[in-house]
């Protein structure tokens, strides 16, 4: 009984289900399988990004540069595709992952070797990465007519009734589940977040573990860079602007403690799904989309209040990460 009540994932899943059912009462057909699959597909990218952010937040860091990384990588692959349409898309996807990885590594190195707080580093790279987009594109947009059809189609290919985009999210989620629960890196990530000092004594390299999480979040941001441009068929400076905070919001709603060490893969997925369902439900029940921001804001605040009941911990831990590593 107690474990069920304490399990945030259970309650979050229940709330999401109630939201879907309630919306379905007002607007029949909302809960039809294909509509739900559509919502899942719309949320796929947020899920992937939230998982990446989760691995970072678990180690008491934060990655504010994910959306900029995504936009920059997206622009790079869009430009490559526009210039050389002959390059096969899987190669381009791999390249997007590599770009994201390099950008993430840049964050990670500064945090690991120089011991600068992650929030400062990623605040800096957030603006740098987005500025570079303008430079490499010369202020231009890459629109639909410049992208090759294969580039755009690749996220839309259906397999077993679901578009490829959804499958990518599923694959990443499964990989993440294995990573977080079955590998030593996953254990190390939790350990660093729960108690950095003890982790050091347990032989875990705190700095290197953080570096690894920034590689992960960078890789996934880069991957989503391709997905974003492919899905919305636009590469521009404005892509995913301000999205970094939506990603963090998904994590927070999913019960991932900003103080580190607490959170699950299912939580991150459900947190993203929660925001996705709200986004899809509001227009359907004739609520103006202008309400969406206030509602998700209220949801975040509510989630934080509920989180705090579960675990009463110091509020300052995220700003204290350097303490353990120094």
């Amino acid at each position, binding site marked *: 009984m107690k474990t069920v009540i304490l399990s945030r994932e259970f309650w979050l899943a229940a709330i999401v289900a109630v939201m879907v059912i309630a919306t379905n009462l007002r607007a029949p057909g909302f809960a039809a399988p294909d509509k739900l699959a559509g919502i899942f597909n719309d949320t796929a990218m947020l899920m992937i990004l939230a998982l990446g952010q989760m691995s970072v937040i678990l180690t008491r860091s934060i990655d504010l540069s994910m959306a900029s990384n995504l936009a920059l990588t997206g622009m790079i692959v869009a430009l490559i595709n526009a210039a050389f349409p002959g390059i096969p898309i899987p190669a381009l996807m791999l390249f997007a992952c590599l770009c994201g990885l390099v950008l993430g590594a840049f964050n990670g190195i*500064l945090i690991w070797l120089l011991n600068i707080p992650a929030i*400062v580093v990623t605040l800096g790279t957030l603006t740098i990465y987005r500025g570079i987009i303008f430079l490499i594109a010369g202020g231009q947009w890459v629109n639909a007519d410049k992208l090759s059809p294969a580039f755009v189609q690749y996220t839309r290919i259906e397999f077993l009734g679901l578009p490829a985009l959804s499958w990518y999210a599923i694959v990443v989620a499964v990989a993440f589940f294995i990573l977080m629960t079955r590998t030593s890196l996953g254990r190390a990530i939790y350990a660093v977040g729960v108690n950095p000092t003890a982790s050091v004594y347990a032989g875990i390299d705190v700095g290197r573990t953080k570096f690894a999480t920034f590689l992960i979040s960078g890789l996934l941001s880069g991957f989503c860079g391709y997905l974003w441009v492919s899905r919305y068929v636009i590469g521009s*400076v404005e892509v995913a602007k301000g999205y970094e905070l939506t990603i963090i919001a998904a994590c927070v709603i999913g019960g991932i403690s900003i103080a580190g060490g607490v959170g699950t893969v299912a939580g991150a997925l459900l947190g993203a799904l929660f925001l996705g369902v709200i986004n899809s439900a509001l227009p359907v029940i004739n609520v103006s989309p202008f309400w969406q921001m*206030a509602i998700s804001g209220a949801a975040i605040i509510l989630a934080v209040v509920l989180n705090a009941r579960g675990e009463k911990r110091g509020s300052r831990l995220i*700003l204290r990460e350097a303490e353990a590593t120094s």
Partner: protein
Amino acid sequence: MTDITHEARHIPDRLESPLRGAVFSWPTLLLIVGVVLFIVNSLASPYFLSPWSLSDATFNFTEKAIIALAMALLIIAGEIDLSVASIIALASTAMGVALQFGVGVPGLVTIGILTGLICGVFNGFLVTGLGLPSIVVTIGTMSFFRGISYIVLGDQAFKGYPAGFDYFGQGYVWWVVSFEFTLFLVFALLYYVLLHHTNFGRQVFTIGNNPVAARFSGVRVERVKFILFCLTGLMSGIAAVLLTSRLASTRPSIAVGWELEVVTMVVLGGVSILGGSGTIQGVVIAAFIMGLVTFGLGLLNVPGIVMSIFIGALLICVIALPILWARMRRRAAR
């Protein structure tokens, strides 16, 4: 004041290095960067050194800098407020709504500032009353406050502010010195005294260094933090009045992304994001630097988005270089 900052437990290497004293202090280093930028600017563009263009340059940063003053105190105390830009939007919206009812200039200003203060109280209550982490709470209220603006305004804008309201964002106090800038200088002085020469300021540092020790030494941690959140709200309300007056319109997308710029300004000013150390002088100089960079690059026709590369690089370099420098010195000493 230096006693407090140097004894801080969590200050990075750069402040603990033997390069102490006023000559090598953080604000001095920033000042040098600022002077270099100033010289580069005046060499790069013949238009830079006129009083009017220098006055124009101040408009780039004063509104953000006014918030940064309060944000500096908050970050020194170990908290953060990411909702400041949304508070501006909400306060501006409140003024816009009041405008529809024909409220006069004093009323508009009062409503703008009060809305900011109420938002600050709301943040402060959530963080200190319920004991929640401020970084998440203010990400939530960031969406919440701006969301309310969107609900009220939709995609329309309120215009037609009365004559006299434009003074706050466009007026000049003396020849070429703008009202905004004067206000910023007055606030900078007030915050300098508050942080470095009052008991309250000492308590802010104490909390940032060690909240538990602060509590045991009789500091009312919650109350101080609550006041700090009220202050950032208040300053955001004031910034909202200035910005709305300068733009002469209210729209829900006003000041988008400013929260991170304000934090950048504070961190660039040498305030440790870990809390416990920092100076108002540093923040003021950092504000000038950001103003110089954006205005100078603007004169050279560098687009705004590219300027952000410089700001970001400046932020990282300014934090990283002293750390590298201290390491090299330590290695050389061995």
